[in-house]
């Protein structure tokens, strides 16, 4: 049973560029959440997708957008990259959106903005 997978594993971009990160949820899961983890900090919630709609959003600017496909996989897009966007981006999947549901995390995509 494949867990949560993310691609690419590492990425280097320059300021002002745009980036797309991808996530495939654990088999049977229908909800995907994205988190940003800056160096030395805990992950911060970006947004969550369920049934191809953004259901909940954290305190991130509109430069951060996403999409969920009919097969439940998801993309995170970041426009106009800033140096401060350098971080580990984590995808998590769960079944449904209840607070009791466990979120399973992928290995992350490490983004470096120069």
């Amino acid at each position, binding site marked *: 049973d494949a867990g949560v997978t993310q691609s690419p594993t590492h990425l280097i971009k320059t300021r002002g560029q745009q980036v797309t990160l991808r996530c495939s949820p654990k088999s049977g899961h229908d909800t995907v*959440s994205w*988190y940003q983890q800056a160096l030395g900090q*805990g*992950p911060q919630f970006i947004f969550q997708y*369920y049934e191809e709609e953004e*259901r909940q959003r954290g305190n991130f600017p509109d430069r951060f957008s996403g999409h969920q496909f009919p097969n439940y996989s998801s993309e995170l897009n970041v426009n106009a990259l800033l140096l401060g966007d350098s971080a580990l981006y*984590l995808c*998590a999947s769960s079944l449904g959106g209840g607070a*009791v549901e466990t979120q*399973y995390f992928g290995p992350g995509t490490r983004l470096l903005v120069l």
Partner: protein
Amino acid sequence: AQSVTQLDSHVSVSEGTPVLLRCNYSSSYSPSLFWYVQHPNKGLQLLLKYTSAATLVKGINGFEAEFKKSETSFHLTKPSAHMSDAAEYFCVVSDTGNAGNMLTFGGGTRLMVKP
């Protein structure tokens, strides 16, 4: 609103001695509480979770945590540390007031285990 405070950013123990990682939470509704572990250059792995059943929760690798509503705490313990326990530990809250199940993470506690 929900928040988590991990009271120690670093904890150092000797192998074979007990581990205590402290966590306090704030939640407007009935919370679900989790502990996740992150080894270097690895993703987050769930250790255990509390979801309003038994207040003493047992997890993987000998870890357990006790939910104390009166103290708004969810401390993580292990009777005997092993070298492989060295990692970053995150206390996490999700409350039922969410439209989804957004997780709010504490700042993390780095556990160091000395031989």
